[in-house]
């Protein structure tokens, strides 16, 4: 089989299947992760003492355990208790909860970085605490947290490759299977790597633009 035919008939369909699966893993995990992060991050700053410590424990555990361990717990670990997740579901749960813990940290830091006077200023105008949180504090916190949360989204793209380890066949899995079949490791992992690079670069570009749109003069968080 010529290289071209191999690429067209074997590699291209597999890579397209793989990328599609990766995207189906990344997008929901990113959304769930952000929602979890915003909720737990806010609870850790403004929440009731009990909720605060629950959220703190969650963040410590899910930031402290390697993601691979978490995925194995969801997929293989819980199966021993009769709780069966499909590889896809286990991966999305694992990614969302892990990602959420990291987002939580950025959101918390951002909320803490906002001066107390912002809340006082809003309250003095007759805002309720909830109103002030939503129209004054969170819009500022989101801007402050954006670089960190953006980084986390980039990490998520790369870490989505670990879904292969719980037998969810996405981009890395498709490459591995095809590579073993035709003994073309170098080529296939280079192609897979290039696709990840492409995804990561696109995401970085989009995030930079979002940061640009949301930028407020003099309000930029310190950049490194």
């Amino acid at each position, binding site marked *: 089989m010529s290289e071209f035919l191999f690429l067209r008939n074997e590699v291209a369909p597999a890579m397209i299947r793989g990328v599609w699966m990766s995207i189906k893993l990344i997008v929901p995990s990113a959304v769930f992760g952000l929602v979890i992060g915003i909720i737990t991050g806010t609870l850790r700053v403004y929440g009731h003492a009990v909720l605060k410590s629950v959220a703190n424990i969650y963040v410590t555990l899910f930031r402290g355990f*390697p993601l*691979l361990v978490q995925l194995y717990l969801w997929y293989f670990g819980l199966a021993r208790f009769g709780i069966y997740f499909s590889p896809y579901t286990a991966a999305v749960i694992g990614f969302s909860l892990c990602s959420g813990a990291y987002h939580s940290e950025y959101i918390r830091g951002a909320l803490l970085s906002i001066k107390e006077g912002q809340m006082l200023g809003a309250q003095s105008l007759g805002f309720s605490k909830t109103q002030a949180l939503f129209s004054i504090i969170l819009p500022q916190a989101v801007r402050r947290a954006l670089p960190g949360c953006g980084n986390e989204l980039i990490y998520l793209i790369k870490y989505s490759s670990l879904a292969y380890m719980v037998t969810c066949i996405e981009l*890395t899995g498709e490459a*591995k299977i095809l590579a073993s079949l035709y003994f073309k490791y170098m080529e296939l992992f280079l192609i897979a790597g290039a696709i*990840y*690079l492409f995804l*990561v670069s696109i995401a970085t570009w989009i995030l930079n633009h979002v940061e640009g749109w949301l930028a407020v003069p003099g309000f930029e968080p310190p950049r490194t």
Partner: protein
Amino acid sequence: MHFSITAGLKAVIEGLPYILGGVWVTLVVVVGALFMGLVLGTLLSIAHVYGNRVLRGLTGLYVWFFRGVPLLVLLFLFYFGLLGALHLDLSPFFVSIVVLGLISSAYQSQILRGAILSIPEGQLKAARAIGMSDTKAITFIILPQAFRLAIPGWSNEYTIIMKNSAVTYALGVAEIMARANHVAARTYQHFWLYLLAGFIFLILTYAGTKLLGLLQKRVAIKGYAR
């Protein structure tokens, strides 16, 4: 196969010595990668800050590549792809250190670059003014300051490598995760053994950051903080 803490505990206790044996493997991988990342990362950061346009472009490309491709893909690429193509026979253990080290060098170069750039220009000027060559100025004046500033970044980098090191299990490195898996396959107590592995990583991460915190205090210079 039902919810049974006693069976789980039994497996954990019986498997513990074997799994703890993996701590050394993990530590060697992590420290080796961190060290390799430090050496390469330092060179890269110097090339990026003080190099000409070509050097800057090349280091940029390097950083972009190793920060953009997932660890698992790089492990497969190096172990199955590159070794095969070069007809080399290296152990998964060694390849893991190299791959983690290469990735880390990309991140560490960024950390150090930030640190170098935050040092006032006057430092380099003053070093030149007393007759130092640029190499000497960078070695004796800039880097000692930059390294101190970079410690918090390293602490973070250490925790990331520590957690990522679990992925080397995919190549069969007999580290903590691999060993937890062996015991799990024998005892069917997957949940408890992965939980154990998770906590071992958690402790190693915590201990390492504490250690680096101590280092930061030791090398701190009075009134020197930015």
